[in-house]
């Protein structure tokens, strides 16, 4: 009997622990602290207790049980946030229909992807694990924290982060469904219509549900409208419960989606890539739409031929909340360097450049109350660099998520895979950067096909 109770107790304890995301306590000592929201603090400490930043200042006391990290001569910044990524995903595109609002990348998270570790080794602590850009209305996305080491996909989810969904304009949805499938949309006209039809149908769906709720109060035999997962998701966008993150390039299509959103009362809108955002920066600012851009990618397809690496600077100067994203398993590893390019192209200040990869992507994902700057009460997500992170010579030293060290340049082994197959030799591929791309899984995942 005693044995059985002990077993039961152990089981309950273990399952209770498993349900809890791992959090830690760390005292980072004597670094140059780049808070992003509150200036630069020299020779300062950051104390994280149980996953939350509890104090920032000079000569702080180490809480009992906290790990001590000496950051003398090093730079401490908030963990980098990538508002557009496809790492940690088993599948990217459900490219079977121009509208797939019902699917969720949160259902296909892959905690074993070594790409998570490589992103951590670039100071990244949170990413927006996005659906691809094959469909005008793609799937819902998941904001994740890079808790590499866990085997449980759910542990990656940033609990409480707002829901988001992927939309796409231009060449990708035109090619996949228009040219490839002979369906609307083959043109940018068709893409607008796809949105208007989808939102109109969702309005009808919501109206039918409302009518049913009213009817049910007086008539218990009232019949509920047919449940539809796709229309549920679209309805949630209309209600303001989901932030749209839309793959886009050209100025005309960016204006088009803003007009559609205005007509349907949708306010939560972030444009992704948005290479021609600079042309409509005043309109983006007026709408209050965010822009998440590449630092300097252009000319890989026709719709990005009229681009400028000054995009982020123009958007920032026009008052648009702007971030720099990777959309790549490679570029996610040096977003700090990508942000630095806004100083070559547009002379952004250090803090403006750092905001592009910290607070601004956090705002775009609706998680800025928890991450994106070093402030008391925020999550203990921190990156430590050997030099100022905007310097080309800066090397990430340590990356901390929820107070747990997930990357340590001094301690980690060379091979950081979690599940190497002992039977299989890890061969070199000649063209190895095919995955983690926007068009992955559409059968036409060409290089640079963002």
């Amino acid at each position: 009997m005693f044995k059985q109770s002990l077993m039961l107790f152990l089981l309950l304890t273990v399952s209770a622990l498993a349900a809890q995301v791992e959090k830690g306590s760390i005292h980072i000592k004597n670094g140059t602290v780049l808070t992003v929201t509150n200036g630069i603090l020299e020779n300062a400490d950051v104390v994280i207790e149980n996953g939350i930043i509890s104090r920032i200042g000079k000569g702080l006391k180490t809480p009992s049980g906290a790990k001590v990290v000496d950051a003398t001569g090093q730079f401490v910044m908030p963990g980098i946030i990538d508002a557009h990524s496809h790492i940690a995903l088993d599948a990217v595109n459900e490219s079977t229909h121009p509208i797939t609002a019902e699917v969720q990348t949160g259902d296909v998270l892959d905690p074993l992807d070594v790409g998570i570790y490589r992103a951590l080794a670039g100071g990244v602590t949170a990413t927006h694990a996005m659906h691809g850009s094959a469909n005008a209305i793609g799937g819902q996305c998941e904001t994740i924290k890079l808790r590499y080491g866990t085997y449980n996909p759910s542990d990656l989810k940033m609990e409480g982060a707002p829901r988001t969904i992927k939309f796409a304009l231009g060449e990708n949805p035109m090619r996949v469904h228009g040219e490839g499938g002979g369906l609307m949309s083959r043109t940018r006209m068709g893409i607008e219509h796809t949105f208007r039809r989808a939102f109109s149908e969702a309005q009808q769906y919501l109206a039918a549900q409302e009518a049913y709720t009213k009817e049910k109060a007086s008539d218990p035999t009232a019949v509920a409208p047919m449940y539809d997962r796709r229309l549920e998701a679209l309805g949630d966008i209309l209600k303001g419960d989901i932030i749209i993150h839309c793959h886009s390039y050209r100025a005309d299509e960016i204006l088009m989606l803003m007009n559609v959103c205005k007509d349907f009362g949708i306010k939560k809108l972030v444009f992704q890539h948005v290479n021609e955002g600079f042309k409509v920066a005043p309109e983006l600012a007026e709408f209050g739409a965010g822009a998440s851009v590449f630092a300097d990618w252009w000319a890989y397809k026709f719709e990005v031929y009229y681009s400028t690496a000054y995009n982020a600077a123009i958007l920032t100067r026009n008052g648009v909340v702007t971030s720099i994203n990777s959309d790549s398993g490679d570029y996610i590893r040096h977003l700090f360097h990508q942000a630095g390019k806004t100083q070559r192209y547009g002379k952004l200040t250090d803090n403006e450049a750092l905001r592009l990869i910290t607070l601004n992507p956090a705002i775009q994902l609706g998680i800025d109350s928890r991450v994106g700057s070093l402030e008391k009460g925020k999550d203990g997500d921190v990156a430590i660099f050997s030099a100022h992170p905007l310097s080309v010579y800066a090397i990430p030293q340590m990356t901390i998520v929820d107070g747990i060290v997930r990357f340590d340049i001094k301690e980690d082994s060379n091979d950081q895979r979690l599940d190497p197959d002992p039977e299989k030799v890890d061969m070199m591929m000649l063209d190895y950067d095919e995955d983690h791309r926007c068009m992955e899984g559409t059968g036409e995942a060409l290089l640079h096909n963002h």
Partner: protein
Amino acid sequence: MRLIKNPILLVLVVLLTTVASLSAQVVGKASKGAFLLKNATIETVTKGSVKGDLLIKDGKIANIGPNLSAAGAKEIDCTGKFIYPGFIDGGTNLGLVEVSSVSLTQDSREAGDVKPFLEALTAVNPSSVAIPVTRVSGVTTVITMPEGGLIPGKAALINLVGYSPNEMYAGFKAMRMNFPSSAARGRRDNRSEEDRKKEEEKKFKEITELWDETKLFAKIKSASAKDASIVQDYNPTLEAMIPVVEGKMPLFIEVNRSSDILSALKWVKKMGVKAVLTGVSEGWRVADSIAAAKIPVITGPVIDMPARQSDRYDRPYANAGLMSKAGVTVAIRSNDTENVRDLPFHAGFAAAYGMGREEALRAITIVPAQIMGLGDRLGSLEAGKDANLFICDGDPMETKTQIQQVFISGWEIPMNSRHSLLYDEFLERSPGVKN
């Protein structure tokens, strides 16, 4: 503001403004002449860092020294500024590809497997929008390469100034070869290991035959030159291979996997070709062997993914430095088209991850020049060398640094590109939203 009352004048003003804004879509003319760059920190690369003046005349660096003067030269005050030699990218597709996903704007990949008669220089588009974008970053000279197949064709060195390929040509060509490999091309490569090995063997057989036939062809050619009765068939493939097989024209061997690198080293020794290894992403695994073979390397991109899932995350950053430390002659390339301008950042990453700044700077200046046999003309700031150089306000590998003026073959380059012109036009858009 006074109102313009004369309607003709008004039309004229409107026209002039329109013309000015239209012409903003082209980058403008380069100008040549004598330029005296005063009071700079001159990073010569080969002879250290010196304070002083630099005189450009007739397309060359005429002189470097303190207190230079030159009658009629345009003086440029460089107080607090730096002068660097123009960066050289050892491998790009610049000028050959305009928009990579639009196949008809792509001139780098001809059909066929063995095409040594192809000349990259022929297809270089001097009006490629990416050329001004590249050169304003301080990259003045690039190797542009054909792609695809066993022998993609001849790569050529071009200066990023000029209105024809011949004007741009900078005096170096090399044959390219993709070294046979049994490695999978990528995750979607469905060939079995056995099939991949078979294809590799077939390629090796093709190479052996190509070399044998070329040697025979060369013999017949020299015989027919002496004896008119010996008729030689037209064979552009073998004709183009003669200088390569005879070890006169350099052969750029693209090879990346460590086992393939080792087999390439053996092959080069056996064939007696004048070889340069390119790509070499796993060079760090066999760096000592490459050093012992004394074959130079053009590696890159540096900012790239590790080649294997099990590799340490920073191997591509560290590769150039690891080879260099082992004694390999290492130049760095971007292997890019529209973002060749990132070359100094590739060098910066290599510098940070073990190569050191000085050696990384050499890897994009004097080392590629020497690999091409042009060390007496390019790659450093010395009197008598080509005036390929730029003025900047700091370390050009740092993103914060502004490149202020570029000279290529003595031409003062307009510091505009599509990117900067769009910035000028749209930073404060007019009309905006409300006016």
